[in-house]
């Protein structure tokens, strides 16, 4: 019998709340996290709309000198990890052997700090470059700083699979716990993409939503009028534990992680395979890993970023796996925006709340699905339904597909 794995802690930094419950309430109420950039923000005048998370003083999570040249991605990762450990009631060293704790916290790294240091180098030569730039920007530094801050001495890494990275970190954590290589894993992602160069890259790739007079209407997954994604910033960290470990310490369990799948489209760097066959295979892999069938899935949280090609490919994949009578589906990015790799963590947290409350969140702004899209979309209002299995999809540039399966705490 394979060891069970359970979720005991969740910490979020998001445009619509810092706990799973807050985010779930916002998504169900259609309380949007999308806004026009404020005057003075680096992306003011660069993008029409984005999903902003609350400011965090770097000095609140790092010693003074180290908080000066550090990227927001690292700061948000530290905040989310601290909140997740507090939510789990865990102190490393007191409640768990530091060598039996792992960290897999991912993201693209501190690119905005790198960008500003490149500009300083161009202006002032080598004297413009701070030696703090490397610990401030390297993509592993979220994970590394979390380890340093909390005295975690087991396996640590970060995964670079773009918008699939958060979900993949949770999946890799499951693998590590099943293999008995750790008792507890902090897993998740942090992304801070709201600076001009990065935003312009998405804009020039024609990936961003544009032309909406109401910014909260800009992200509209699966809606016929969708015209791109809305970039968001944030972080999310789960505490996953071997179920036996969680039970032994009397921990509260939010949900169980039942299985996962990961693969690659092998098609194009940024465009998903149009027939959705990679995503479909990924979902089937997750079901097989959990010992479940398509009929067991009671709610599907789609990747659904609100791009034309991405949403259409996912609809094709869902039809392929679930047939005509598939599960209720929603994408919660209509409210949260697309927080890149963090999306998979936020959406897994939403799945946890859906299981707990027997309530399925709607897709905000889905007024009119594409012709021929006959999925059971949850629209306008949340839907009451006692479900025992939630699937969450995440897909990333590079063709990376990840599916996670969650269920209520079991034996």
């Amino acid at each position, binding site marked *: 019998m394979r060891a069970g794995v359970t979720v005991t802690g969740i910490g979020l930094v998001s445009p619509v709340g810092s706990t799973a419950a807050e985010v779930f309430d916002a998504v169900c109420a259609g309380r949007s996290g999308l806004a026009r950039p404020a005057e003075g923000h680096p992306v003011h005048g660069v993008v029409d709309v984005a999903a902003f998370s609350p400011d965090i003083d770097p*000095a609140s999570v790092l010693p*003074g*000198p180290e*908080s*000066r040249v550090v990227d927001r991605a690292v700061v948000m990762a530290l905040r989310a990890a601290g909140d997740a450990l507090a939510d789990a009631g865990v102190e490393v060293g007191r409640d768990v052997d530091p060598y039996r704790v792992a960290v897999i916290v991912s993201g693209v790294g501190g690119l905005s700090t790198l960008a500003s240091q490149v500009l300083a180098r161009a202006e*002032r030569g*080598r*004297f413009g*470059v*701070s*030696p*703090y730039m490397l*610990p401030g920007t390297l993509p592993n530094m979220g994970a590394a700083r979390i380890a340093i801050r909390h005295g975690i001495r087991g396996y640590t890494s970060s995964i670079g699979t773009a918008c699939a990275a958060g979900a993949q970190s949770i999946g890799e954590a499951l693998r590590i716990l099943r293999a008995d290589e750790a008792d507890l894993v902090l897993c998740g992602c942090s992304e801070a993409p709201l600076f001009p160069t990065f935003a312009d890259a998405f804009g020039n790739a024609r990936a961003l939503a544009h032309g909406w007079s109401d910014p909260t209407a800009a992200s509209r997954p699966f809606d016929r009028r969708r015209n791109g994604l809305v970039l968001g910033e944030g972080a999310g960290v789960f505490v996953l534990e071997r179920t036996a470990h969680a039970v032994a310490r009397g921990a509260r369990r939010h949900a169980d992680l039942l299985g996962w799948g990961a693969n690659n489209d092998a098609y194009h760097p940024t465009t998903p395979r149009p027939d959705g066959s990679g995503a479909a295979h990924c979902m089937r892999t997750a079901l097989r890993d959990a010992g479940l069938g398509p009929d067991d899935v009671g709610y599907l949280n789609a990747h659904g970023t609100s791009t034309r090609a991405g949403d259409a490919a996912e609809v094709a994949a869902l039809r392929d796996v679930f047939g005509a009578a598939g599960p209720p589906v929603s994408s919660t990015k209509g409210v949260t925006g697309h927080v890149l790799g963090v999306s998979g963590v936020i959406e897994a947290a939403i799945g946890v709340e859906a299981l707990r409350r027997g309530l399925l969140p709607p897709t905000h702004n889905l007024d009119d699905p594409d012709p021929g899209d006959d999925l059971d979309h949850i629209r306008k209002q949340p839907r009451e339904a006692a479900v025992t299995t939630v699937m969450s999809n995440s897909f990333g540039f590079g063709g990376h597909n990840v599916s996670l399966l969650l269920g209520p705490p079991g034996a």
Partner: protein
Amino acid sequence: MTDEIRAFLFAALTEMKYDIEGADDDTVFGPAGLDVDSLGLAELAVRVEDRFGVTFDDDEAEALAMMTVGEFCRTVGARVQPSSAH
């Protein structure tokens, strides 16, 4: 010269978010004093190189960690050519 270097040093440390309250010529850079870590010393060296036109080789940069503020200022001052202090 030493006063100018000391003023620059304290301004730089303040900007780097080190606590300089009560620091004087006898204060050390290490844990018993300002508690500036290796990266902090590296940045300080770069700032001094930039401002006073001096250069530190690797061994000297390491030796800074053992110095007091006064020793540091005198070391830099002895290296500075009057014409290069701008």
